[in-house]
Every structure is written in structure tokens, then in C-alpha cells.
């Protein structure tokens, strides 16, 4: 048990139990899983990616590359959770991952023995023989060994929320610079959001020992937070990581709402995705300690000095019984002093520098700490660290320590400044990359900008906020910085112990060692991007937060350049990994997209409809009668009933657009290939609409209800597209036209009845039966009238099914009533509701084109509408439709097909081949776009396109369907199989 007897910010009155790899341990509220494991003397927590070497806890936050665990189990199992950011809760259950059978004995560790051969990118040079072996043998093995944690066993049971926030200033990070900035801007009255990734505000102040205003720094943090909380214009957001900077001042943020609980509270989300729109932002994300590259630096027990400071200061944990420090930076000395003062035994402070500030030596002496100047650690020993080999003054010495704190200086967290392509700049003075061009509206303050030392960070944060407040025309009161003594921040660049023994790692998780970088350079991969991609350096789950700079240093030396010359790879979003569930939010399962219901839906369900998803809509597919199990039987019955009596279907999903104004006729003439301006009031006309490139966009009927009032219908699929196209014509192409187009798709329920008894049925619901008499309302006529005792209605006499038919439109809220009324009125005539399947059968029998034919690849001529195209006027697409490729007689044209052997079936998707032709692309004559069994004709019928089109009618070709193993001889015929002269429509 390594918990210090006093100090820290854990709540010793709230003990928590948790388990790791099946063993039970205890911790306190305020612990992370990592601090609790260290307090319980658990050092070995994982295995590395390639060599499966033992891995411990290196860092204390988001940067952690090693201590990745599987958190929770079953459907809630989260792979690759960072122990250093997992807030401890009672009953927490975690397991080591990427190790078998156990983390302490992992058979895959044998890879380590082959490390001389498994160098950088070795796999590009081998595994090629024999040819098949890569996929059969090598790759499966590699895949099994690779990967880290396991995905959950079942759909994620938790909810994920989304929210939007807007502010004048977003402050990212709540260390000295962030708090000073938030307080200054808040006092100035700006709308401020203070986002902190940690579950506690304060940043490094939570770990540091040096007092502020003569008290522990946390006291000042608490006072500051209390004031911020009291300001209505300031919103502090804990557990909220800003992960991405997007355009227009949009920041992506992930709030971990319930990750610190066993499961989210009832109905509460697990996480919330925030989309924060901020006019300005101050990045105060601090800096993280940098590892040193030396032999065995990956051994459990070797950790960042900054982390040691946190274990001791914030979590009251002594991370080792005997701890050595290896550094080239003053800050690590301060860490050693603080740790020692808190009760952590310090074996030695080893500094690569030959000389350090006398004050440091003095302070060490005062504490009786051993110091080694000009020294370096060349190797380490132990499964978990048991000793280190120190070389100094020409001699080696082995120190028995079980902990080693390392620091080669700091890497400012410039990540977010790169999200708009800004390239970090190398700063020799602090041997680190500092922000280059930041995204618009963002400034960087404090350690993230390379400014070290508390008072400087306070001042910089406050100044940045004051300047922004001024831009908003507000004045900020001077920031009253707390009194304190700044720690020493001197350092000199030190990267790599050249005389290391054993593997000296740069990227701990991906097992990239110094020798790999040198090999990459030798093989010509000297661009930083090539180095990264060739060695996988910086591609681990920490995205190079620790590895990048040391890697660049080794690269620079090996390729005879400076780090400034090598440059660095770009950080891209997200700053820290974001769960896919949070990015998806509530749009899951059946609620992935909103479902649109037809006006008669409730009636249809009562009538036993089987529904099908049709784009955004849910529509009736067929209405099985009692005892009907085969859908084909139901569909056949529905078709026959419609053809012989009367059938009913809800067609409200068609797009409908109300057109008013003096220029509607002119507009329609330009939209449709055929002429509409001549259409008389009370009449309906079928029209075809093209894109400007000459291909068909949509078709439908448009009725002229009065001189200056028209209503257009579009296909269900193209409703939105046509409406947008129409507004384009009115607003961009011809804004001189006085036309008001209003979508009324939702306004009108439209129910179609077709069949010989359609008029008799309709008579039972219209208030004025005379108005629908054959002569009063002829085929393609339209009338505004009333039904069901005074309900406003529009009746159009047309039928997609090809019978005497009417489409009756009433306000959508009356659609269900209309369906019921029609069913009642038609009962005596055997009215039968039908669904999309029967509709499809009947439209194919009639040879009407639909989605499969109007696929955006066909012209009006292809579809047999050539004669409809008016040459007396211009219309969209007319000119481009004259291009040779569109008038080529060899183009596939629209025809019908019937099997020579009438017992055979046809399937859409079959291609057409000449008799005896080989099945090759060159021999391809066309395809069948729609096919069905026709109950009316008693054989299969198909529609499709064949090279040459109608000219081939009468020929016999093959409908070849290699995919489903059929090859059927078919006769090419006219597309209309049923009532070609349309007598039944006019009946």
C-alpha cells in the first residue's frame, strides 16, 4: 500500500472498491484508476502493440500511451480506456488487454525475441512467399496479435446526448492561464465558457505544492471557481474535452456526463456531444512532460516526472519505494523536492546537464538528496523496474530503484492550433514546438504557448482575455494574481542516450525504438510524414503526444538536420479519442432517421397492412386477407380486384406544389419538355422534366385548377429535389417571373381509387355526384368540390393502375376519414385496398415508367417520350439533349419483354444478350429494369432498355441473369401490356 498518510485531493472518507484483472482493490473518491492502481502497488497494467512487452503507467492524463484497459463488461465494455483519465467509482471493473493468457505471462511476448528482425516496416519486405500465404497465413496471425481491446459484445445500451452552446469566449483548460483568462473575461461581462477535460478544475495547480497566497494552490482554485460560478455569464464545464476546431468558430466538445458512475442515472446520457460556437477562444491547454529515449525506458515503473508530481501531490500516492529522477530540466528537480517533502523516498536526481542552478543543488543538499550531474541512464532491469544503470563521470553504477521519473523538458499542447492547418514552430530556447498560425479567433496562453512559470501564465491568460474583452468593447478589471514563488523552469535539450543498452523506445505503445528511426532514415524515409508512416511512430492512441518530438530529434540527428528543418507532422482532430456513440447521439436504431407516416396510416394498420420503408415514408406493401400467408397471393388478389371491381391506395407521398401567379404557364413551359401554358382550367396534363444536361429528372401530372392556380405533382422520391429546382428557376434563372411556389405535400392527403366501379364508389362520398359524371369529369379532368358533407376536396381523374380512376385529395387531417368513407362506399362493389406491390404490378402491366426507369441516366427519347418534347419552345435540357451521344440511335431504348416460354419468370437486373452470344460486356445489349408476374395476363412481363429500342420490337433475345443462374429467351415488345389504347381509363 503506497498511499501517503496525508495530503492530496482524494476524499479519504469515501473509500471505493474496484477490481482489476479480477482482483479486488480499494481507492478513494478523487482517484483515477491509475492512481488507485499505483496506490495498490499494481505496476504491470498492459502489453505493448508489437512485442507485447510489459507496460506500466507512464503519464497521468490524456497523453497516456500504455495504461490502456478494458473498462466494464458485456454491452458496456469499452476498449482502450486510459487508466489515467478513468475516474474511480465504486465497483469499477477493468481488465488488462492485448495479453494472453495474462498480462504477467503473455505468450505473444515471444515476438520480442524476434525484435531484431521485426524492425521498422519489416512486413513490407517479407510475408510475400508463397503468393497465397499473406492472406491465408501471415495476415490472420498479424491481425490476431494486433489490435488492443475488444469491442463490446452487444449494442451500446447507453444514451448519448447532443447540445449546442454559444459564447463570446471559449477558454480551453483551467490551469493558471485558463483560470486567469476566464475570470478576467467573466468579470468584464463576456459570455464565457470554461472547458476542462479533467473532472476537477485547476490543471497543474492541483498537483503543485508551492503555495499561492500562502496556502495550497487548490485553495485559490476553489475561490476562483466559486466566483466564476457566481457569474451568470460564465459557464464552467468540467469533464468536457474540446476535441476539434471546425469552421466558423465551431468547436467540438465531449462531456463525460456519467463515465464516473457504474451506469448512467435513469434516463441520463452517458456522454454529451457539445457543438460550441465561440467568437473567440483562448487555448490554455498546458504542456506535457517529455520522455527521454534510453535503454529499457519502457519498463513499468518508468514514468513522466509530471506524473510523479501528480501521484504525490494530487493523489497522495508514492509511486515507488525508491524513486530516481532522470532529467535535463529544472522542473523535475522541483518534482523530486515536492515528492521527497511529501514522503516519497528519492534515491537520486540524475541530470544530463553538467551544471545546474546552484539553488537547485542547495535545495537538494538541504533535503539530503543525492544528485548526479552530467549523468545518464543507459539501461534498466526487471519485469517491472528493479534497477537502473547510471553512467556518469566515466563510470557505470547500478541503482536499485523501482521507480524512475523522467523529463526531457515539455511539449506544449499545440494540438488544437493545428486543426486549420497551422504548423507548429520550433523554439530553440525551450527546445519545443510552439503554436504557429492558430485557427481564426484563437489565441494561445500559458504553457501551451511555451510560457512556463505560474506568474507568467497568470499574466498571459489575463492579458489575452483583457484584449478580447476590449474587442467586444468591454473593459476588464486588472487581474489580481495570487502571490507565490515561481518554480525554476530552466532546461536544456536532451533527447536520446546514444550509449543505451537494449531497446530504447520512442513510441511506447507501437514499440518504435530509436533503431527503427535510424533504419527508416537509412532507407530514405527522411520526410517526417514518411518516417511516421514507415515506422508507425506517433500513430498510436496518443497520436504522438509523447513520441513525436523525441522521434523528430532522433530523425534530425540521424539525417544531419535540425528539428526546425525536419518540421513536424500535423495534429488532426480529435485532441483525445471520441466515442462513436457520442458523435451519433440519439439517431440510432429505429430512430436513425425520422419516419413519415401517410394520412391513412392508422386505418391501413387496422386493415392489416404489411408495411415497408419507402425512403423516409412507411407505406403499405400489401393487405393480406385472413389466412393468406404468401404475399404473392395477396398481391394477385389485390390486382384482380382492382382490374375487375375497384381498388384503393394512399398516394399522398407524391410531392405536391401549389403554383400561383400570372406567370405559372410560362414557368411550366420552361420546366417541362412539353407545353403547359395551353392547358385549360379543370384539366390535368402529364409532364416530363429534364435536367439542364438533357437527362430526365422527374415526371408527374400538373393540374390547372383556375387561371392562375395550378398544382404540380412529383414522384415521391424527387419531391424535395423538384421543389428546390423550381425555386432555383424562380430565384436564380428567371427572377422576373411572378410565381409563388408553395409545397403542399403535407397539406393534401391523396387517395387513389381505380377500377370499373371507381365512379360508383366515389359517388358515395362526394357531396355533388353530378360533378363526377363521365362528361362532367372526363379522363384527365380535375375539379374542386367537397366530400363527406362539406370537406374541401380536389378530384383528379387519372389512374396509375390503368383503370377508370380518381385521385381524391382532402386536407391531410381528413385523409384517414376519407379512406374509411371510400372503403364503406365501395364495400358493395368489392372495394379492395392494395399496397405498393400491387401498384408496381399494375404499372408494369401498363408500361408506366417509375424509379427504375427514371434513374437519371435516361433521356426523354430513351423513355419513348421523344414526341412529347416541344421544339416550339425552349425548356431546361432541350439544348443539351441534342448532343450526339443523347440522340444516338444505338442508345438503349425503353421496351417491354415477355418470355417465349410463358411459364418462365423474369427478374429485374437481368442483362440482355443476343441468342448464342457469349456473356461478355461487349455483347451486352441492355437490361431489364422492372419485372413482375402479371396476374392479369397470366405470365411474366418485364420493362427495360435495349440498344436500338423500339426498332427491335419483335426480336427474340436472352434475359441473362448470371447472378441468379437464369437465362430466359424473351420477346422484345411494346412496353404497354395491358389496354394499350387506354379505353379502360376513359371508360
Amino acid at each position, binding site marked *: 500500500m503506497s498511499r501517503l498518510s496525508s495530503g492530496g485531493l482524494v476524499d479519504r472518507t469515501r473509500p471505493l472498491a474496484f477490481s482489476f484483472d479480477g482482483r479486488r482493490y480499494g481507492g478513494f473518491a478523487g482517484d483515477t484508476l491509475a492512481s488507485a492502481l499505483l496506490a495498490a502497488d499494481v505496476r504491470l497494467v498492459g502489453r505493448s502493440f508489437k512485442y507485447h512487452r510489459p507496460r506500466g503507467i507512464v503519464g497521468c492524463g490524456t497523453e497516456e500511451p500504455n495504461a490502456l484497459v478494458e473498462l466494464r463488461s458485456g454491452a458496456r465494455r469499452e*476498449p482502450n480506456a486510459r487508466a489515467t483519465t478513468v475516474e474511480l467509482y465504486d465497483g469499477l471493473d477493468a481488465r488488462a488487454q492485448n495479453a494472453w493468457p495474462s498480462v504477467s505471462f503473455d505468450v505473444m511476448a515471444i515476438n520480442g525475441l524476434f525484435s*531484431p528482425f521485426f524492425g521498422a516496416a519489416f*512486413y513490407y519486405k517479407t510475408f510475400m512467399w508463397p503468393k497465397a500465404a499473406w492472406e491465408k497465413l501471415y495476415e490472420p496471425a498479424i491481425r*490476431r496479435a*494486433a489490435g488492443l*481491446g475488444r469491442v463490446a459484445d452487444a449494442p451500446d445500451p447507453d444514451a448519448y446526448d*447532443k447540445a449546442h452552446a454559444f459564447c463570446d469566449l471559449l477558454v480551453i483548460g483551467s490551469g493558471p492561464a485558463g483560470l486567469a483568462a476566464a475570470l478576467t473575461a467573466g468579470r468584464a461581462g463576456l459570455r464565457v465558457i470554461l472547458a476542462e477535460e479533467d473532472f476537477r478544475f485547476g490543471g497543474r495547480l492541483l498537483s503543485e505544492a508551492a503555495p499561492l497566497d500562502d496556502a495550497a494552490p487548490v485553495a485559490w482554485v476553489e475561490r476562483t471557481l466559486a466566483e466564476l460560478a457566481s457569474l451568470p455569464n460564465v459557464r464552467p464545464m468540467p469533464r468536457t474535452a474540446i476535441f476539434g476546431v471546425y469552421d466558423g468558430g465551431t468547436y467540438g466538445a465531449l462531456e463525460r456526463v456519467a463515465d464516473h458512475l457504474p451506469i448512467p442515472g435513469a434516463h441520463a446520457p452517458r456522454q454529451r456531444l457539445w457543438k460550441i460556437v465561440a467568437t473567440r477562444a483562448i487555448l490554455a491547454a498546458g504542456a506535457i512532460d517529455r520522455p527521454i529515449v534510453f535503454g529499457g525506458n519502457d519498463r513499468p515503473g518508468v514514468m513522466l516526472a509530471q506524473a510523479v508530481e501528480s501521484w504525490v501531490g494530487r493523489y497522495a500516492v508514492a509511486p515507488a519505494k525508491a524513486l530516481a529522477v532522470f532529467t535535463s530540466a529544472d522542473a523535475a528537480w522541483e518534482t523530486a523536492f515536492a515528492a521527497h517533502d511529501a514522503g516519497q523516498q528519492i534515491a537520486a536526481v540524475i541530470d544530463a546537464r553538467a551544471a545546474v542552478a546552484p539553488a537547485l543543488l542547495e535545495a537538494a543538499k538541504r533535503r539530503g538528496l543525492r544528485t548526479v550531474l552530467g549523468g545518464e541512464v543507459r539501461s534498466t532491469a526487471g519485469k517491472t523496474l528493479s534497477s537502473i544503470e547510471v553512467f556518469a563521470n566515466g563510470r557505470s553504477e547500478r541503482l536499485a530503484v523501482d521507480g524512475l521519473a523522467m523529463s526531457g523538458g515539455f511539449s506544449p499542447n499545440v494540438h488544437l492550433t493545428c486543426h486549420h492547418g497551422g504548423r507548429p514552430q520550433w523554439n530553440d530556447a525551450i527546445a519545443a514546438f510552439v503554436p504557429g498560425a492558430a485557427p481564426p479567433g484563437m489565441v494561445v496562453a500559458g504553457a501551451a504557448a511555451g510560457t512556463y512559470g505560474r506568474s507568467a501564465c497568470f499574466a498571459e491568460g489575463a492579458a489575452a482575455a483583457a484584449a478580447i474583452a476590449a474587442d467586444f468593447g468591454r473593459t476588464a478589471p486588472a487581474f489580481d494574481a495570487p502571490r507565490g514563488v515561481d518554480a525554476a523552469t530552466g532546461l536544456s535539450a536532451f533527447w536520446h542516450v546514444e550509449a543505451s543498452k537494449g531497446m530504447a523506445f520512442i513510441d511506447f505503445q507501437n514499440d518504435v525504438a530509436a533503431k527503427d528511426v535510424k533504419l527508416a532514415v537509412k532507407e530514405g524515409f527522411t520526410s517526417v510524414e514518411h518516417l511516421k508512416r514507415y515506422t508507425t511512430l506517433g500513430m498510436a492512441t496518443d497520436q504522438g503526444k509523447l513520441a513525436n518530438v523525441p522521434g523528430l530529434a532522433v530523425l534530425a540527428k540521424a539525417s544531419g538536420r535540425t528539428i526546425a528543418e525536419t518540421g513536424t507532422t500535423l495534429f488532426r482532430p480529435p485532441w483525445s479519442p471520441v*466515442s462513436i456513440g457520442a458523435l451519433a447521439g440519439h439517431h440510432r436504431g429505429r430512430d*436513425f432517421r425520422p419516419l413519415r407516416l401517410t394520412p391513412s396510416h392508422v386505418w391501413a394498420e387496422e386493415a392489416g397492412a404489411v408495411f415497408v420503408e419507402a425512403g423516409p415514408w412507411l407505406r403499405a406493401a400489401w393487405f393480406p386477407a385472413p389466412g393468406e400467408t404468401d404475399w404473392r397471393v395477396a398481391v394477385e388478389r389485390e390486382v384482380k380486384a382492382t382490374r375487375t371491381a375497384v381498388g384503393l391506395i394512399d398516394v399522398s407521398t407524391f410531392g405536391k406544389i401549389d403554383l400561383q401567379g400570372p406567370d405559372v404557364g410560362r414557368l411550366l413551359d420552361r420546366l417541362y419538355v412539353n407545353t403547359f401554358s395551353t392547358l385549360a382550367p379543370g384539366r390535368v396534363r402529364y409532364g416530363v422534366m429534364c435536367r439542364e444536361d438533357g437527362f430526365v429528372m422527374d415526371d408527374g401530372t400538373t393540374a390547372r385548377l383556375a387561371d392562375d392556380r395550378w398544382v404540380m405533382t412529383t414522384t415521391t422520391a424527387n419531391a424535395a429535389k423538384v421543389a428546390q429546382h423550381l425555386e432555383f428557376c424562380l430565384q436564380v434563372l428567371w427572377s422576373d417571373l411572378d410565381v409563388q411556389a408553395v409545397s403542399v405535400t403535407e397539406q393534401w392527403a391523396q387517395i387513389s381509387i381505380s377500377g370499373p366501379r371507381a365512379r360508383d364508389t366515389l359517388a358515395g362520398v362526394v357531396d355533388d355526384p353530378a360533378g363526377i359524371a363521365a362528361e362532367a369529369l372526363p379522363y384527365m379532368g380535375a375539379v374542386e368540390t367537397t366530400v363527406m358533407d362539406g370537406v374541401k376536396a380536389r378530384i383528379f381523374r387519372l389512374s396509375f393502375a390503368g383503370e377508370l380512376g380518381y385521385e381524391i385529395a382532402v386536407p391531410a387531417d381528413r385523409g384517414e376519414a376519407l379512406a374509411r368513407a371510400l372503403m364503406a362506399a365501395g364495400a358493395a362493389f368489392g372495394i379492395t385496398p392494395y399496397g405498393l406491390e400491387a401498384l408496381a404490378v399494375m404499372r408494369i402491366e401498363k408500361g408506366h415508367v417509375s424509379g427504375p426507369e427514371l434513374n437519371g441516366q435516361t433521356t426523354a427519347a430513351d423513355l419513348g417520350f421523344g414526341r412529347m418534347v416541344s421544339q416550339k419552345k425552349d425548356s431546361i435540357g432541350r439544348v443539351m439533349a441534342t448532343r450526339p451521344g443523347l440522340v444516338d440511335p444505338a442508345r438503349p431504348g425503353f421496351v417491354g419483354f415477355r418470355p417465349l416460354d410463358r411459364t418462365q419468370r423474369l427478374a429485374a*437486373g437481368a442483362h440482355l444478350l443476343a441468342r448464342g452470344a457469349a456473356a461478355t460486356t461487349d455483347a451486352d445489349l441492355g437490361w431489364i429494369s422492372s419485372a413482375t408476374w402479371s396476374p392479369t395476363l397470366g405470365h411474366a412481363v418485364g420493362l427495360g432498355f435495349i440498344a436500338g429500342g423500339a426498332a427491335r420490337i419483335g426480336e427474340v433475345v436472352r434475359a441473362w441473369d448470371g447472378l441468379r443462374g437464369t437465362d430466359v429467351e424473351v420477346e422484345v415488345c411494346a412496353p404497354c401490356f395491358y389496354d394499350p389504347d387506354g379505353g379502360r381509363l376513359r371508360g
Partner: protein
Amino acid sequence: MRYSLLNVVVNGLTGNRFTGPAWRDAAPKPAYDVVIVGGGGHGLATAYYLAKEHGIRNVAVLEKSWIGSGNAGRNTTIFRSNYLLPGNQPFYEWSVKLWEGLEQELNYNVMASQRGIVNLIHSDAQRDAYARRGNAMRLSGADAHLLDRDAVRRMMPFLDFDNARFPIKGGLWQPRAGTARHDAVVWGYARAADALGVDIVQNCEVVGFTRGPDGSVTGVETTRGTIAAEKVALAVAGSTSRVAKSLGIRLPIESHVLQAFVSEAVKPLVPGVVTFGAGHFYISQSDKGGLVFGGDLDGYNSYAQRGNLAVVEDVCEGGMAVMPLIGRVKLLRQWAGLCDMSMDGSPIVDVGPLAGLYLNTGWNYGGFKATPASGWCFAHTIARDEAHPLTAAMRLDRFRSGRVIDEKGVGAQPNLH
């Protein structure tokens, strides 16, 4: 030097004493037979096949940055030939055939892995359309199978078959499709081309062209001097319009960004490539274990190589809709590639439009899979001054003639392809 097991062992034992640069860091010569502008997969493959298949070895590949820095290094590494139209399908099928032997051809393990692709089907109309496509694939000699719901379930039980807004009704399966290690493809072609004498010149940006009295292209002006060339070939996806502008050419091209995403590494889950038929989402899993996925274009012209959040959400919604068990898998990195989106969604491989100039562009978001065949056919076009039969339909003049290759049928609207 040839890579072999022995080579790996020897270098392992000798601390890599017997290894050297994978390709020479060449300095540009004053003149070449062929100068290829653009050191991406297509440019390097073109150089390789020029040297290998046509004996033209006095070739330079000019790259303004590091080779593979464009879309070759920012894609989702999928190859397939599940195309519909005769102008496309045979070309992509030839590409798959080249992928199948690429390791041995290049003596470099590009990790081409034929894990298969399944396009999920969610409606009867979609099944009919995929049936037409699958038969078109078979006509060109490709493999295609129509799967029913149960077959898809056996293959990928983790998909949502029970609670979906758009139920899975089957799939179109091409077993020979797969993925490859994208960077390795670039390095493999570079190393192989270099071995045949091709000069690969990095950090050499083309800033202009030299022209003959007749207006023909006679060479390039670069940041490393003027280079004369019998033939200048453009393979600069993402920058085509900018380069063409300096030649006074306007093209049926818009630059758009396509985002791609990778998750943290997880143990094997997704066997091959899966595409969601009712939303914008497709996914595969890399050998390292990362889930590699993407969706639709951001949808507006851009040279920013950066995507926006709304599309990230849209893609992840699609992911959760088909694979609701990945909710706790974490997105590790997002990036974006610049796509030359053409007006019909299909590529342009052609001689001209100026004498001495050769055009390879408009690969939309499908350039990676085409890399081998694009190099193969473009090399032929350059060497013979005529279109290769497999790219005969991909000429620039098709927009004027109307013989477009519009797989999606959305017309001259690049962001919809």
C-alpha cells in the same frame, strides 16, 4: 536490392548493415522523354509501367512535397470492381487483377488483402439495381454474388438485423475486393520504378510550363529549374484545375473534400468492407486493428484538406445505425483528401487537350483502387499517343458529345456523385 526472407534475416542479424534507400533521392536532369507531374500512386505507377511495359525509362516523376503526400496517403485503402457501366467496369476489373499480383510484381508487400466487399441492400428496388450491377460485373469477368439476409447475417452477425430503421434485406458481395496498405503502394511503385531507372524528384514543384511556337507543351518550370520533356503527363489529383489554369485550360472538375476516419485499434471485428445502403457509411478494419470508415463528401468546393463536424456526425450516425455495438469504440483521427470531382463522377484519362500534354484526373473519391490500372492505361496512352481500350470511354470530349459515364445518374453536379 531484392527483398527476401534472407534479406530480412541477414539485416536482422547485422543491425541492418545491408540495406539502403528504397529509392534514389534524384536531382532533376535538364530533359526527359516523359515528365510526370505528381508523385502520387497514379504518377508513380504510370512511371513504373512506362519503364516496364513500354521500355521508356528516361522518365522523371516530379513531386512538390514527399511522394504519396496527396490522396494516396489519405484514403480508406479499398479496391473493388463493383461498377455498373461498361465505360468503367472492365477498367476497374483489370485493376483488381493487377492488385492480385502486385506484391510479386513489385517485390514489395503492399498487403493487398482480398477480404471482400458487401454492399448492403435495404429495399427491393435497391436489390434490382444491385442485381443489374452484379450481372454487369460478371459480364466483365468480375466476381459478384447476391446475398440474402441470412447470408449477410452469417457473415456479419454484429450488424443490426433486428432494430433497424432501414432493415437489411441482403447484399451484393464481391469476394475479390479488398484493402491494401496505401503508403506501401506508393513506396512499392517508387522503389520498383526507381530500379528501372526512373528519377523520383521530391520537393520539386511545377510552377509553369514551357510551350512551343505551336502552343504545344515542351517542358515544365519547377522550383528546381526548367525541365524539358517530349511529353508532360499530369497526375495531380486535387490540384488539376490549378495546374490546368496555367495552361489556359478549364476542366469539368471541382475540388471537394472527402473525410475519412480511423478508430483506436481493436481486436478483429469486421471481416471485409461493408457499405450501408441507406446512409452515408462504409467501413473496414486495418491489419493494425483500427476501424477505417467514411461517408459522403462535405459537399462544397474546397482546397482545405479539412472536414467539418456535421459530416462526422452524419457518418457516425450511419455507423451506429448498422453497427450499434461500436458506440464505445473511440474515433482516433479524422482527415480529409482533396478529390477532383468530375461532372459525371468518372475519371478522365486522355491525350491532350494540348500537344505534348497528357491528362489523368477526375478520379473523384475512387482513385486509390484504380492506381494499378490507371498507371497501366495512362502509360499506354503516353507511350502510344492513343487511349487504352480500357479507358477509351474516359476521354475528355465525352461531356461535349454526351457520352458521359454517370454511375449515380445525378448529372453534372459533382458534390452529388
